[in-house]
């Protein structure tokens, strides 16, 4: 087995520390008893208790969760269909435009995606609110879902599908009985990532939201613009915990999927 050289080990430790230390500091400060963020006043759950009474914040969190649930589900359905179309349908008319529309939003600055969505809703005079944010988040997340599921479909043992078809199963039946169960972990993982993306988004939601649909990031943003506060440390720590658990679960699911659907002999 190879051994890490001292230099490489030091690089890794420093790199990981750089990535995690700020978040750890944030979480530690959220348990600070002192009102002054920078003065350490001992451990306390005070700010978490305070949050329970902050109705606007809880309302925003509830809206964010609902938006994330609906948009992640819609994005997963549409994104999976898009991935199947890209990988299994060979060349169809407009495939190039289709592929471009899936990859472009991944690199498009959020400010522009948000602006263009808002201008669409204004042009067709739709009142902005819960559903416009859901539509915007679905569009953004479906591209991520498509890319993840597509990657899974590409390194998928095709002989399984071919065997099912040879035995007389229709393409639809083959998909439901063979393909879907095998790509299910990738689909579940992309649902969670879509959920995390929606829960995290500030810019697109700011453009597409309306009265009564203030999401949690919008609320957090308007607070942190004014500076650091112990309540915000506590809120942010909770969000980090929720998203962290979702992502670890998602990556475990992907691993299970990769082990299950890998071609024989791999």
């Amino acid at each position, binding site marked *: 087995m190879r051994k890490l050289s001292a230099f490489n080990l030091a690089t*890794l430790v420093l790199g990981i520390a750089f990535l995690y230390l700020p978040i750890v500091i944030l979480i530690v400060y959220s348990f600070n008893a002192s009102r002054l963020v920078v003065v350490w006043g001992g451990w306390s759950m005070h700010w978490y208790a305070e949050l329970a009474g902050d109705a606007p914040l809880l309302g925003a969190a509830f809206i964010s969760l609902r938006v994330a649930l609906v948009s992640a589900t819609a994005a997963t359905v549409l994104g999976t269909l898009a991935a199947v179309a890209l990988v299994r349908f060979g060349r169809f008319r407009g495939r190039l435009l289709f592929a471009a529309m899936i990859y472009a939003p991944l690199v498009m600055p959020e400010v522009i995606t948000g602006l263009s969505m808002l*201008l669409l809703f204004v042009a067709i005079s739709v009142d902005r609110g819960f559903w416009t944010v859901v539509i915007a988040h679905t569009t953004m997340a479906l591209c991520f879902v*498509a890319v993840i599921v597509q990657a899974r479909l590409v390194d998928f043992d095709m002989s399984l599908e071919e065997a099912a078809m040879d035995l007389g199963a229709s393409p639809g039946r083959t998909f439901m009985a063979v393909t879907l169960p095998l790509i299910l972990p990738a689909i579940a993982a992309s649902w969670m990532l879509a959920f995390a993306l929606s829960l995290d988004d500030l810019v697109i939601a700011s453009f597409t939201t309306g009265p009564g649909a203030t999401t949690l990031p919008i609320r957090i943003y308007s607070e942190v613009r004014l500076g650091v506060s112990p309540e915000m440390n506590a809120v942010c720590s909770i969000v980090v915990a929720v998203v962290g658990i979702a992502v670890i679960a998602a990556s475990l699911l992907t691993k299970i999927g990769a082990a299950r659907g890998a071609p024989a002999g791999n």
Partner: protein
Amino acid sequence: MSDAHKSMAKPRRSFVAKLVVRLPYAWLVAFFLVPFLIVLKISLSQTAIAQPPYTPIFDLAGGWHGIASFFAGLSLDNYAFLGSDPLYFLSYLKSLEIAALSTVMLLVIGYPIAYAMTRAPRRMQAVLVLLVILPFWTSFLIRIYAWMNILQHDGPLNRLLLALDLVREPPVWLSTNTAVYIGIVYSYLPFMVLPLYATLEKLDESLLEAAADLGCPRWKAFWLVTMPLSAPGVIAGALLCFIPAVGEFVIPDLLGGSRTAMIGQTIWTEFFANKDWPTASAVAVVLVCLLVTPIVIFQHQTMRGIERD
């Protein structure tokens, strides 16, 4: 593989199969392509004190005459305005400068990390990849907020510097360009490390052994073999960092000062504060053009590379 499948695909598809393509296709056309065309159209319109605050408005009810007068009402004035006001030019320049410099810093920091990851034992590599990905999914806004905590005047960083006697007066970090660079490098590090790791991991080690057998010192082998072979990863990582960094809004807004007006902020202000939708749209269109150019060049280079092989 796809070629083999293409011949298998039946020419006539069922209704359900058509739906598989058409549903996501229609969604993307309606909510990605059309909105972008609207941005393009509004960038050619004039500001108006009305709702919506621009003119002309596309009105099919006006018949042929209405459509004709709509096109007659379009103009390039907004683009001329962008050219005449140095504010916009400087804002683009500043964004490109910050994005380019951050990308270089990310390369310098990210390359050794990616390299060290490939040197780790196999089992540990999977864990390391997860460790690098994890913060990328942990709320962007919150990671920037975490730095507001650290960089504040009597925050942990300044206390550490004072305790170590490295500075006499606590330096000001927030609302400076330095803070923006820290924020971008911190947020985008996974984007840089992952593609680099993917390329370096595939590197054939026997090449390095051959170089060593032929008497090439290790640093020289690294320079002559590893570096050139990792070029695709470097390009992919640089693009993945540079492109979103140019349009960044949250980082300069929370960590930067009023003098760090990046183009994402300019669009935001034009839109929300100045309510000048046509100008905001024109700024956005120019930004997209700026960002598409490096991608097209990259695509072109990759195609040439494939042809060469």
